[in-house]
């Protein structure tokens, strides 16, 4: 067992050197290289030894990434595995059994097995703890019935993290259990959910008598809500955003449209553009300040606020862009129903951006819920009345 108390950047570089010496990226199969990298503890250095990490500080990951990138090593393409890397992995690490960690984490990290999330339901959006998908015990198995929604990547996923109701007779937060669900199991029916943009980034997933072995339960029976909290905390961190250069993202697109369309300029649009430019630049600074606070080890409560600011900005900017285009703003690039692998704001045209941005204030916690969170947890204002808190789940009006 390696002592990692004193792990530093030099150790990381030495380990990367050893990995590269044994597995030349130029001549090694991509998957073989990724597995070797995982086994060398260089996948996520803050994970424990034996599970792709070295038990070191998270900040050293950047050292490993930079060294491997410079050597032309393949990546695990993290953009395509947001749910697995960002949500499933930290939850498995925290609540999984030894066998579960050993089974799931390696192929998750290498991308061999893609993950999706079965949390939201038609009747449980902001109030996720109201989830009604039932799991009933049958010997060593659980039988699951229900409907999940807003599942991205379900059609490509091998596994899902699943939140269920196992005891309807106790208050809603107490009667939930959390499972790993095999997306290829009989009874899992995946249907694309078409959005206002015309495409389907997400799916509805119908679960009909899906049988899940008890060994795929994460956490104790009835502990599902606490397990889900770990998952969701990591989601907010994931959405929080990175430092970006000036005029990156949506602002850059709109500014470029302004510069290339002098005929469409009016004083009123100019004033709105400049206000949004200032808002975006100040918000970029706030994101950078948050990043500096995290790096200094003193995270502020600003994280949840950044999502709120981003949603407001992206909606205002994308709306302005459509107006800026005049006659061209009347056009739409393509209504064809398709299932994109990634959300691509920049690769599409203005009308798409305008419509897709509407989801920014809904997905991952609505702006209204985020305002409640800020008001209650940051400002200490009284909580919303919770009339269903002590009622058995089955007696809650719905």
């Amino acid at each position, binding site marked *: 067992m390696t002592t990692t108390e004193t792990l530093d950047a030099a150790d990381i570089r030495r380990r990367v050197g050893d990995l590269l010496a044994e597995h030349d990226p130029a001549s090694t199969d991509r998957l073989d290289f990724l597995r070797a990298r995982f086994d060398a503890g260089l996948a996520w250095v803050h994970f424990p030894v034996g599970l792709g990490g070295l038990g070191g500080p998270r900040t050293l990951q950047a050292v490993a990434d930079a060294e491997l990138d410079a050597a032309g090593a393949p990546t695990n393409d993290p953009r395509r595995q947001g749910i697995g890397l960002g949500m499933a992995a930290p939850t498995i690490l925290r609540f999984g059994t030894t066998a579960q960690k050993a089974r799931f984490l390696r192929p998750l990290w290498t991308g061999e097995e893609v993950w999706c999330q079965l949390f939201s339901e038609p009747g449980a959006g902001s109030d996720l703890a109201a989830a009604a998908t039932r799991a009933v015990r049958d010997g060593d198995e659980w039988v699951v019935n229900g409907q999940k929604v807003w599942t991205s990547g379900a059609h490509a996923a091998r596994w899902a993290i699943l939140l269920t109701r196992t005891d309807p007779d106790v208050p809603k937060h107490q009667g939930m259990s959390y499972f790993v669900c095999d997306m290829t199991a009989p009874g899992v029916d995946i249907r694309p959910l078409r959005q206002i943009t015309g495409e389907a980034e997400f799916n509805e997933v119908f679960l009909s008598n899906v049988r899940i072995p008890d060994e795929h339960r994460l956490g104790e029976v009835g502990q599902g809500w606490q397990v889900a909290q770990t998952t969701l905390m990591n989601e907010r961190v994931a959405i929080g955003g990175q*430092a970006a250069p000036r005029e990156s993202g949506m602002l850059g697109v709109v500014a470029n449209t302004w510069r290339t369309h002098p005929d469409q300029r009016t004083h009123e649009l*100019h004033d709105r553009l400049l*206000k949004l430019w200032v808002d975006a630049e*100040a918000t970029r*600074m706030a994101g950078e*300040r948050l990043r500096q606070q995290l790096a200094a080890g003193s995270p502020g409560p600003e994280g949840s606020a950044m999502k709120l600011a981003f949603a407001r900005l992206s909606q205002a900017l994308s709306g302005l862009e459509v107006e800026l285009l005049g006659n061209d703003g009347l056009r739409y690039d393509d209504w064809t129903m398709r299932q994109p692998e990634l959300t691509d704001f920049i690769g599409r045209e203005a009308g798409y951006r305008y419509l897709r941005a509407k989801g920014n204030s809904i997905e991952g916690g609505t702006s209204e819920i985020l*305002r409640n969170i800020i008001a209650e947890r940051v400002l200490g204002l009284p909580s919303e009345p919770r009339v269903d808190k002590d009622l058995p789940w089955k007696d809650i009006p719905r």
Partner: protein
Amino acid sequence: MTDLLYSDVEDALRASVADLLADRSGLPSVLRRIESDQPCDLKLWATVAGDLGVAGLLVPERFGGVGASAREVAVVAEELGRAVAPVPFLGSAVLATSALLGCDTSAVAEPLAALASGTLTASLAVPLAGMPGGAFPDTVRATVDGRLIGRVRTVADATVAQLLVVPAIGPDGPALFSVVPGDGVTVTPVTALDRTRGIADVTLADAQGQLLAGPTQAPTALDRALTVGAGVLASEQIGVAQWCLDTTVTYLKGRYQFGRAVGGFQALKHRLADLWLELVTARAAARNAADALAEDSADVAVAVSVAQAYCSVIAVHAGEEAVQLHGGIGMTWEHPAHLFLKRAKSDEIALGTPGRHRARLAGLVDLPGPVA
């Protein structure tokens, strides 16, 4: 990337200023003072400027100052804003001091040393609504032998200044002069919207000035002073906004109507959450401006105009929300909320309105307006 956090030294400075203000300039005393003949608290200023040494923060050590930067000055401005402290910090320690620092002459050594020690208070004789990037003021003319004639309206902190730094057009063009109030100098206090900052009209009728900078230096020195002033003002504005948010949150937790703390109503919670987010964002913009000034970054003009355009609006919003969400008590003279609303609204105009800073940014970041 700029450093947007507060250093330990800056936090310590903040704590010492905040302690002093809590002890010596409580809001009840500010409320009494604005009805007196001298709204400026000269005793408090002597302590803040001299004993705490904040007047010498920008002054290099060779002139007897602390040799700190706009980062520390901005932290002081934040605390002074949070207390709406009636002291001439902006006019003297920021604007006039920065103007003197831009003059390459031995004539500034003595006033800078006196400013740093807190024994001298100065004022930069420009209209407070002026801003960086503008034309050199031409309302004062200077003769060959430094006699000044003209008028400057709404000058910050002139009423308590023992030295005026006056931009004037001389025979060779733009120039900066120092003028000691006396013969030919009339300083007429204005009844100000914000009584916690002294404003006066200055009339110069054949007043004797001493030349500090000629055409090659004066425009740069003045623009730098206005840039520092505008950047530091953004931090004052977040101090004003912070008081408004903190005080309103505290009030709404304790104010009961309909049998509930009114802070529990979602309509009010969401307004305060939005205000908090605005303040988080404003603080980052203000720190960015302070850091750009301290580092003399190539981006300083953009950083300062972004901070002014953003923080001005947020401070006014915070002041307006404080009055509204306090309900009837917020409308009374006895409650201090109006001090902050008046300071915020005046600060919105001071050193460039948000609209003027946005118009300036249009040129700085290549977003031109409609053609013709």
